[in-house]
């Protein structure tokens, strides 16, 4: 914070990376290549995994560069990031397992 050199150039580089990721996501979302969309790997399509990984990459870019997390003290960073990441993974895992269970229990009762 106190150091006065400018980060302007780096900010724009991060911006272009984030934009490029978004363009890739949108292009994949519009064209949905069959090889990626209609196959399955680790429970969902490769396309969905690509979306999730690109999203996490964007989240990393925003947090580390724009929110300047990289400049914070190590254990402050961990207090924020580890707490949030752990609780979110925990919650999402439980809820998705529960949702899958609900589907397997209720879907046979629905007549199409």
């Amino acid at each position: 914070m106190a150091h006065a050199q400018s980060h302007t150039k780096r900010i724009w580089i991060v911006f272009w990376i984030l934009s490029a990721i978004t363009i890739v996501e949108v292009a994949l979302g519009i064209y949905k290549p069959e090889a990626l969309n209609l196959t399955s790997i680790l429970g969902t399509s490769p396309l969905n995994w690509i979306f999730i990984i690109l999203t996490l990459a964007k989240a990393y870019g925003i947090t580390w560069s724009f929110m300047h997390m990289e400049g914070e003290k190590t254990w402050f960073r961990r207090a924020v990031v580890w707490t949030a990441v752990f609780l979110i993974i925990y919650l999402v895992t439980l809820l998705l397992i529960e949702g899958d269970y609900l589907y397997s229990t209720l879907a046979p009762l629905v007549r199409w």
Partner: protein
Amino acid sequence: MEANIAVPNDKKPTWGGGGVRPFGASYGKMMMWFFIVSDALTFSAFLAAYGLTRFKFIDSWPIADEVFTHVPFVHGDFPMIYVAFMTFVLIFSSVTMVLAVDAGHHMNKKKVTIYMLLTIIGGIIFVGSQAWEWNTFINGTYGAVKTTDGKILQFVDSEGKQIALADFVVGDRGDIREQHTKKNGLWFEEESTIAQYSIAQIISSYEANPDVQIRTELIDLEKKQKTILSREKGSEELAKTRLVVEGANLEVNEYGNTIFADFFFFITGFHGFHVLSGIIFNIIIFFNVILGTYEKRGHYEMVEKVGLYWHFVDLVWVFVFTFFYLV
């Protein structure tokens, strides 16, 4: 008493931790980070609940590409384009925000002012876009019918492309239904909007037009597309019609599962509310910058703190974008 209350003994403000800076972060900045953690958990809970519900109805969930296809001032199907634009607006306003913070480190009042203004404009464009998106979603495009067993039936042409009720429904309503208004009836009675077409009219138009087919919510998991029924099966399903649905609200939804609309309103609404409050914070800080408050204070840390909040709103949108529109 002295054992229990904080007595400032070094002339530093007690509310700010008495000048103590654990982790080298100021009180305000640290509290903003911890607020962001708790807010992130709130949003995660919403998105995780969305995930649970989607998994619960995995074989009939609406396909986002078929729901969000509109771009203002242009006719036709452009899935994703407008949300992508909104994402860019938000990323760009994040960049101007971080440039404002950077200019603040150099005590460059003029640059901070300009970048704050650009950030506010970006935020307003985003919220406006979201309002437009809501409006389009609420008004609906095609119209559908809901059956007695709670399923949504949509209409497609012979090529499987969705068509609106207005594209094939002909003839007269059949019933002489008119919208009740307070002016021409009982002033204390209200009636919800009557659909443009009657159920009988839709059924007879369907029977009369062999090009029209019916699409159910059921997803063909091989092709990841909604199932189109044969004419006979369609006629059978259509006979169960209970309600003509045009658009979406918290109770009915022409795109499919009602709870999809509920989540749409809830999650994008909650995010939009965050953007709105972010804009208000930014405006307050913007005027403080113009008035020279931070110049006098000797640092622009307030810009940084509000910046953290603004980036967080962007961060949340990245996830909403993925899980609502892409996956």
